[in-house]
């Protein structure tokens, strides 16, 4: 004979233990529940049943499994408000309907049941076996030798003002980005499933009397992961301004206050979202990725979720997706999601599940492969778009798309370009004279006739080509019929005078070096030459300005 102590808990709201747990190897009759201690906690809106079983095996063969059975009629929402409608001043009474005995396939030798209530006020309760009541606790039993699958209805009608908050539906969207962020958004429909509010809602009473609307919900706390950032809390008509955010060491606490207090039967709807750094949840090895996230997260303590939809949006190009869930969930066909810079869409996994409680807050692991090269796709797309844009602008600016030809404008443009050329050439020519001046000055010091002659020769040559170029441009201007040609001709005329002056100053310098003129006379002469030259150059400049 061996004995084992087994402890399990049932939150009556939801069926935690599904049929899958029932072992195939049923060995009824071979085991005996020797001592059973049941604790039924009815102090919140959930009924939490904890059962401690001392199990013995009177038989000889070893038993390696043990069957937990649940009442077939066990259903969500076992705590029912009664009366179903109360006024704002009234307190909320609820009825619990359960089983006095442990529902088990085995014989139970001895059992006690302890029920914890929310308050001292009890309207009525079943009196099986003369239970003892003290304050908030009712003790049933001990009951002896209960046959397998015994049921005896237990009914307790008591005051329970704890808020009966139910999430009628929640959609949790997890969007993974390989650029380092995971965005989580939860769209939540909340409902107060306690006794309905009957009659008026008086704000005056609610503000002035502390026990008015005692079972209503003002606010609750949602605990988000510690790394949550950029938390938002809003609904269809904008941000809900009544929330508070508290950053703790190991979590981020949001005090969620619906826009209005929730009374029995009232509902509300909101969206809460935040960002998480992906390095805490996304694991990678080569091209293999694994995302480990909670399938459902905390919304409020002792939460009850009627219907959950989880959508996991993976990066574009994720393949071989495989889902590891801690419990069974219903997969729905995958979808595609298009957002910024997407081309062929991001895969979306959709899963649903009904009737969840706090114990369902567990991790889910999604494995997938992703080619890292694909990370470059989006930046390249942007680069490409800009490239095309700039290229179009380049083409547009360079080419002429006008449907009419404007000959006048064309001539104007041609003339402008020719004048431009003339300007550069004339300036170059003036530069030549300056250079020649330098050569002459140097010659006066070094008296190197060879250098002077060389300089003069190059100047002559360059001058000739420049003058020829300008003359040809002048001819072109004439062809275009522009009156600028005359001005250019004038420039040419002036220029030849300048050139003459330059040559003369050159000769003068030669004579000075040869000692043919006196220094004073030379300086005088040179001065007048320079001033003449300057005058001519000024006239050329003014003509050029007019061009």
């Amino acid at each position: 004979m061996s004995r084992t102590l087994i402890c399990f808990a049932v939150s009556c709201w939801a069926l935690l233990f599904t049929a899958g747990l029932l072992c195939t190897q049923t060995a009824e009759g071979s085991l005996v529940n020797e001592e059973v201690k049941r604790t039924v906690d009815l102090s919140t809106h959930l009924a939490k049943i904890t059962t401690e079983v001392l199990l013995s095996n009177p038989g000889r063969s070893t038993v390696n499994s043990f069957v937990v059975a649940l009442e077939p009629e066990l259903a969500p929402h076992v705590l029912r408000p009664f009366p179903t409608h109360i006024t704002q001043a009234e307190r909320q009474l609820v009825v619990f309907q359960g089983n006095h005995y442990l529902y088990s396939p085995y014989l139970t030798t001895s059992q006690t049941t302890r029920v914890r209530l929310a308050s001292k006020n009890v309207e009525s309760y079943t009196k099986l076996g003369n239970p003892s009541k003290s304050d908030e606790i009712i003790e049933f039993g001990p009951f002896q030798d209960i046959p397998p699958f015994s049921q005896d209805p237990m009914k307790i009608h008591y005051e329970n003002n704890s808020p009966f908050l139910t999430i009628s539906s929640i959609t949790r969207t997890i969007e993974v980005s390989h650029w380092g962020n995971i965005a989580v958004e939860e769209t939540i429909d909340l409902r107060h499933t306690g006794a309905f509010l009957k009659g008026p809602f008086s704000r005056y009473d609610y503000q002035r009397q502390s026990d008015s609307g005692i079972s209503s919900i003002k606010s609750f706390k949602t605990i988000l992961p510690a790394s949550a950032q950029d938390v938002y809390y809003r609904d269809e008509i904008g941000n809900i301004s009544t929330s508070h955010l508290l950053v703790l060491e190991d979590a981020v606490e949001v005090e969620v206050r619906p826009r209005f207090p929730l009374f029995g039967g009232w509902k509300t709807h909101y969206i809460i979202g935040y960002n998480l750094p992906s390095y805490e949840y996304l694991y990678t090895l080569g091209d293999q990725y694994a995302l480990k996230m909670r399938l459902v997260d905390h919304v409020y303590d002792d939460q009850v979720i009627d219907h959950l939809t989880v959508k996991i949006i993976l990066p574009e190009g994720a393949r071989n997706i495989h889902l590891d869930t801690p419990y069974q969930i219903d997969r729905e066909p995958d979808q595609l999601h298009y957002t910024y810079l997407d081309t062929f869409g991001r895969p979306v996994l959709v899963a649903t599940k009904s009737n969840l409680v706090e114990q369902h807050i567990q991790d889910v692991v999604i494995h997938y492969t992703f080619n890292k090269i694909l990370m470059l796709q989006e930046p390249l797309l942007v680069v490409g778009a800009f490239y095309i844009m700039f290229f179009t602008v380049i083409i547009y600016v360079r080419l002429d798309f006008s449907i009419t030809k404007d000959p006048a404008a064309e001539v104007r443009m041609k003339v402008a370009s020719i004048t431009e050329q003339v300007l550069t050439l004339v300036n170059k020519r003036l530069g030549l004279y300056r250079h020649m001046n330098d050569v002459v000055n140097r010659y006066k010091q070094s008296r190197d006739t060879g250098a002077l002659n060389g300089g003069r020769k190059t100047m002559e040559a360059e001058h000739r080509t420049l003058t020829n170029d300008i003359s040809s441009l002048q001819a072109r201007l004439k062809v275009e019929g522009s009156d600028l040609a005359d001005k250019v001709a004038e420039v040419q005329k002036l220029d030849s005078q300048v050139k003459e002056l330059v040559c003369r100053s050159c000769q003068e310098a030669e004579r000075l070096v040869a000692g043919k003129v006196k220094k004073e006379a030379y300086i005088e002469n040179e001065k007048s030459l320079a001033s003449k030259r300057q005058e001519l150059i000024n006239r050329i400049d003014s003509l050029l300005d007019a061009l």
Partner: protein
Amino acid sequence: MELICLGHFVLSHNPEVWILGELMLNCSWGGVGGDSIHRIHPALECHSLVVSLSSFLLRFNYRSTHHLTSNGFYEFLNWFDERAWYPLGRIVGGTVYPGLMVTAGLIHYVLNLLHMTVHIRDVCVFLAPIFSGLTAISTFLLTRELWNQGAGLLAACFIAIVPGYISRSVAGSFDNEGIAIFALQFTYYLWVKSVKTGSVFWTIGCCLSYFYMVSAWGGYVFIINLIPLHVFVLLLMQRYSRRVYIAYSTFYIVGLVLSMQIPFVGFQPIRTSEHMAAAGVFALLQAYAFLQYLKDRLTKQEFQTLFFLGVSLAAGVVFLTVIYLTYTGKFSLSLMRYLCPPPRYAKIHIPIIASVSEHQPTTWVSFFFDLHILVCTFPAGLWFCIKNINDERVFVALYAISAVYFAGVMVRLMLTLTPVVCMLSAIAFSSVFEHYLGDDQKKDKEGLGPNIKSIVTMLMLMLLMMFAVHCTWVTSNAYSSPSVVLASYNHDGSRNILDDFREAYYWLRQNTDEHARVMSWWDYGYQIAGMANRTTLVDNNTWNNSHIALVGKAMSSNESAAYQIMQSLDVDYVLIIFGGVIGYSGDDINKFLWMVRIAEGEHPKDIRESDYFTPQGEFRVDKAGSPTLLNCLMYKMSYYRFGEMQLDFRTPPGFDRTRNAEIGNKDIKFKHLEEAFTSEHWLVRIYKVKNEGSSRTSSFLRKARS
């Protein structure tokens, strides 16, 4: 130009928006004022509370844009909204200017085509700042055409920050005017360009821009009157040219055809009097051009005879035609509703128009508040323009003069004045700077010393700086807080947010029947439709005065009489705004006299305004108040259980902070109503109409049928 747009953008979002982050961003799109204060406050005070009729429209605009994006354009044109004006409903598609919605919808469509998953709400929020950037650009272009590049830049800077325009272009101000001012400026730019060049290309551009303006705002009437006026004045000034002929003939014909494509406008351009000036000028221009043509071919004597004959004949024909058309009713000499509702007339005959604060005449303070230094400098700019007159400066002079007149008529039209004031002030400043900052090389003829120059320049810069400071201040204080959320400041400077409006609307949305009908004063109609998504009886599109009067009558009757009206209208809930707890002055009791007046207009037998005053002629809510007031539905709903409430130890229970009086009727009991919801600060109170009659399924309709 980017800088200017950016500057506008940044200014449009005042710093607080960022401080409050999500909060403001999200609620700014619902920037719906809770207070159309009917009493005529000094404008300064009004502005700080954000008074604008159109701010109520935002909700509606957003709702219809949403409808457009989710159901498509044709469905939008055919949209019959049965959730408004219960039980009549409202044809929305044919009674709105669709430009705004189509613009936002188009942007949203294009962005989504590129997989930019931007919500239509965000598009709507940022539409106004984007268009204000475009307005700055078109103002620059227009001023450049009128004066020079420097003045253009200054004008763009001015329009980017001037409060008169910021009020309509802050993020979240999703309003017709937001895009219409851009269309207005751009149309004028293209018009000036067409008159200058005489090119059909520019004129067609002008027509397209005009078409956009027609689709966006009723203020298009301003354009279709100003441009003919310009042409007419040019003719008078002997400035007729072939350019003007080409520009106006093309503009009138193409613009007319295009404007008639908007369902809401329809045949108005050829029927109503506000469009007749354009037609007249068109005819005149043709005649003038014809005469010019003849002049070249005839002798002086022949021409004179022909001229007199022609003129008298034309005058006779026009006169007889107008008489005939008016007589047969094909043509109505209606008032120019948008441009000049004579305030005196409206105040006496249409209380509903007079009851909107935006339709009040503009005060001097408001001119200064909205335009600051520009209001002083723009006459100088006008003078510069007139002194160096040419074709397009005639236009801007006319623009300025007419806009000043309209802005004086009604606060709301301040908006049309703002751009021209910016342009002319820019011209004034630009000329002054040109003069005093001119090249030193050119010899001063007047012999201005460098000291005078620098002093004048400094002074001008000081003025501009003060203008910038004023604009920033106004933007951050008056025009940026979303008026659906009220904020109060504690002694330590911390901010308290009173989010009562949305609290109550959201309660309606979540916890009432989907088809519940909510009765409220028309100010809150669009808000209820938008935020609470419930059927309303009357709303801000005040097209049916008698229906509004019926609601006003219900509010001002005693409970049992009101109950009958409410039963006949199938009312499920009644919503009122009550500011007595927090001292909010824009509440329903303060508006109450308008309800009485409007009700009296339609039901003079049942409602008399004098009944609501004390014998001394005062409107009082305390014990001395008239018994009719103290027992009417509005009073009872506002003060239900308020008599028990002691807000302060210094004041007695039931002390109304808004009106600073202890209420006169503290024992309020309801027979047919019950309190359904009151928001945290009592700002919004919702009552449920008890359903006593067994069958009250649309008794109104049954009555209507029988």
